[in-house]
């Protein structure tokens, strides 16, 4: 995970897929993609909209309910 994280922050996030986020395994990655959170920057956006509250973000990650705004 830490190597994955180092790779992620080593360059601009650009169009990196959600799977490039450390600790996002295959199952959760697929779940996030289904809900439109297919890129790392979209998940970053969700963290920012949750005001960088780690508890809220962890809770949301447990059950990434609610489509991303584009879908809804």
């Amino acid at each position, binding site marked *: 995970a830490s190597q994955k994280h180092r790779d992620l922050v080593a360059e601009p996030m650009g169009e990196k897929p959600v799977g490039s986020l450390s600790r996002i395994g295959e199952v959760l990655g697929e779940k996030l993609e289904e809900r439109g959170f297919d890129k790392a920057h979209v998940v970053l956006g969700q963290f920012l*909209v949750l005001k960088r509250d780690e508890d809220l973000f962890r*809770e949301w990650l447990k*059950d990434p309910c609610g*489509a991303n*705004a584009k879908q809804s």
Partner: protein
Amino acid sequence: MDDYAVLSDTELAAVLRQYNIPHGPIVGSTRKLYEKKIFEYET
């Protein structure tokens, strides 16, 4: 949980404030999470 769906975002935010639940803006990608938080608080 459905009865929260009829609340506007502003009304939902007011309930979150009333229950002192930490929250950010209510948008399409966060609304369900906050409805769940209120449901958990009330149950």
